[in-house]
């Protein structure tokens, strides 16, 4: 167990390094740099060059990357924003909470709605209810979240005046962005749960349990559901990375002060330390969730425990 964990943690570290290096390279080789982006349209070459050296953008690439990573890992120092000079650790810390809040609430909605709909659809496969649910989930997968977001705003904010159009600070601000973000995840979970419930229902042990006289409710809760949850769990773990990615778009639409919006703006500004700070916060987070999911997987399914751990 500990050996497995150690190996996974080692793998995570390598992944973080590779991803951060790729991000660093991508931003470095993107045309234009922070000095130009910051100083804008009317600056002279001398002005840009002076600013560039002031920002230490003129040092060789490996030196800059190594310097950055060493400071980040040993001292936890993520540097300062090239645009407004603020400490990146503060900036990321300030913005990651709203994003996590949004992603976790969306994940909760996706899980509950997905499970419910999946079990419901699987209870009578082929029925009208099942067809409707599956049609709905197909739409949920096909329709982009930002479009759903706009429709939700039109209905609940502009027509019914129940919820605010945008903003941050209260529960009512959270509802629309979380629902729009949750929709594809909910649809995915629902489809997965439905198919695995149907599959498990046909298994020998379920037939045996039913023959022993277990009522359908107990059968579902004790035998079918736990066994069908395994693939859904993996899906939910993977989902979190999607949610954080999706949050980048949703945050812009709802003016949500999260990490996604910060990162997108930082990319336009070529604000390397801020982009790196965001990468170094999000990547380990997603990897940790994947690890936790794998460990939970082992807890739910003893077979996996024996094989891999």
């Amino acid at each position, binding site marked *: 167990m500990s050996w497995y964990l150690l190996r996974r943690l080692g793998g995570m570290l390598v992944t973080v390094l590779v991803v951060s290096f790729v991000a660093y390279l991508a931003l470095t080789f993107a*045309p234009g740099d922070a000095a*130009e982006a910051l100083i804008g349209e009317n600056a002279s070459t001398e*002005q840009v060059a002076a600013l560039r050296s002031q920002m230490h953008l003129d040092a060789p690439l490996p030196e800059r990357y190594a310097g950055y990573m060493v400071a980040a890992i040993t001292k936890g120092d993520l540097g300062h924003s090239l645009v407004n000079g603020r400490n990146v650790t503060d900036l990321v810390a300030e913005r990651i909470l709203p994003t996590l809040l949004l992603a976790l609430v969306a994940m909760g909605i996706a899980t509950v709605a997905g499970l*419910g709909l999946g079990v419901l659809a699987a209870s009578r496969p082929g029925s009208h209810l099942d067809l409707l649910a599956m049609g709905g989930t197909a739409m949920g997968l096909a329709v982009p979240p930002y479009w759903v977001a706009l429709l939700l*705003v039109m*209905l609940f904010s502009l*027509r019914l*005046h129940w919820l605010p159009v945008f903003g941050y600070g209260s529960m009512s601000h959270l509802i629309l962005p979380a629902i729009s973000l949750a929709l594809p995840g909910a649809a995915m979970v629902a489809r997965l749960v439905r198919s695995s419930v149907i599959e498990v229902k046909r298994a020998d042990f379920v037939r045996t349990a039913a023959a022993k006289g277990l009522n359908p409710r107990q059968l579902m809760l004790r035998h079918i559901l736990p066994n069908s949850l395994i693939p859904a769990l993996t899906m939910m773990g993977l989902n979190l990375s999607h949610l954080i990615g999706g949050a980048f778009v949703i945050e812009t639409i709802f*003016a949500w002060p999260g990490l996604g919006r910060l990162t997108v703006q930082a990319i336009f500004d070529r604000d390397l330390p801020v982009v790196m700070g965001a990468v170094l916060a999000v990547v380990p987070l997603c990897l940790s969730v994947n690890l936790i999911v794998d460990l939970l997987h082992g807890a739910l399914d003893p077979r996996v425990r024996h094989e891999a751990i």
Partner: protein
Amino acid sequence: MRAIARVAILLSIVIALVGCGQTQPTPVSGSGGGTLTRAMTAEPTAMDPQGAANSGLNLVLPYIFDTLVTRQRDGQYTGHLADSWQLSPDGKIITMTLRGGVKFHDGSPLNAAAVVFTFERFKAVGDKSPIAGNVKDIAKVEAVDDRTVRFTFAQPNASFWSTISMPYMGILSPSAVKAAGDDAANKPVGTGPFKLGEWKRGVSITLVRNPDYSWDPTEVENRGAVKLEQLVFKLIPDAGTQMSALQAGDVDVIFITEPSQMSSLAQDKNVHVEPVNLDSLVYLGYNCAKAPFNDTKVRQALSYAVNKSEIVKTALSDLGIEAGTPLPPSLPGYNKALSSFGQGYDQSKAKAMLADAGFAQGSDGSWQRDGKKLTGRLLTSTRSPNEAIATVLQSQLKAIGVPVEIQQLDSSAVMKATTEGAFDLLLWRYDWNDPDALNIYLSTSRIRQTNRVFYSNPTVDALFEKGLREVDPTKRGQVYEEAQKLILADAPWQPLYYPMEGMVSRNRVQGLKVGSLGRMLVNDVTLSGN
């Protein structure tokens, strides 16, 4: 379980149907008595007028800081913190008397020492500012007495007035800057109608009323403190969300640049749309250093192929005015008649010019010279509505047999590509409040910098220099008229249109005005119930 399913199904049907319904939304009461809320697309990076160069910056600063002079909508400069001034006969010394009784937010008085301090600090920390060069041109700023400041120049500089009217040149309180130390970027203290209340990063900026204010610019009627208690800027990056927020009453004012929004808001009875003219030009530029666009005839030919009225109508829905000259109507030196020196829409002339330049038209309609087909890459940014305009241009050039490929990059990538000369045609714009703009964007000394089209004409360069040194406004205008005639004939740019914005406010907002640079003037604003 079944009940929940029913509700869920019903809800999804309702959502799907929202787009179709057409009920009148009920009016919502605004967000409190004396608070005017405006949406902003981007957040300022800092509240120090001298620290940074971002465009979001001057959105908030003009309400906190006052400048020595104000540029009015008609382009005239009037005193603001300056009461009066005198220009020496050689144009090298300006002696300015300050208005009396003006106090900073921290209670300290506005005096000559504060003005000197502001200019000295700018020279020390203002390297990133777009007006850095112009401020450095001032050789000396000194306090003659408590209310008199003397500016000395090595050479006369006519763009001085536009420089000191910019928000970047707001007069700072020396005592507040010293007290703030390294935190000056977060603690702005000026003499403006509002003080900084709260800055929730990534969310909003709240300004609160300065009750002592009594030195309003001449453009407004209310010469005392503003009636509003608060002015709030809410950060909403998405243009569509800004519209929804306005319609829901979450914000009172938005500025729109998207033609499609203009038409949909024009029908909304709850809002008022005010067109805003900017000191800007959108142009089609040619890479004058790269064959075949280094050939004046080729540039002129392509310019003749451009139908500007089609662009303004189809791609802009009239959110812009057809341009005939490199300078927009709001700047000195503008003269509508000069457009006759440029290339009006004339396809047959375009083709004749190409033939004249040595091109032969093949059976497929394309043009060839020395075995090379006339084609090019039209570079522009992803900023709206550039894509629509580029597409119209592409079809207009195609119509005379010149196929171009559109390349869209983000703004910094476009700037990088143009300084390296990696383009053929460029759809771009400039925003500047002084005719020296032409010097910045078209003079030989700025090639590979802000002269993105590699245009070079020594006669024009000399006129730019003359215009910068001419302090008599009338004579100065004539110099720029001369320069524009030559530029139009050389055709490094085909001026396309003068862009406009729409200032959209809810009906409860009364007395909102537009100032120079498209600035929202709130001094006369009162709010009614809804």
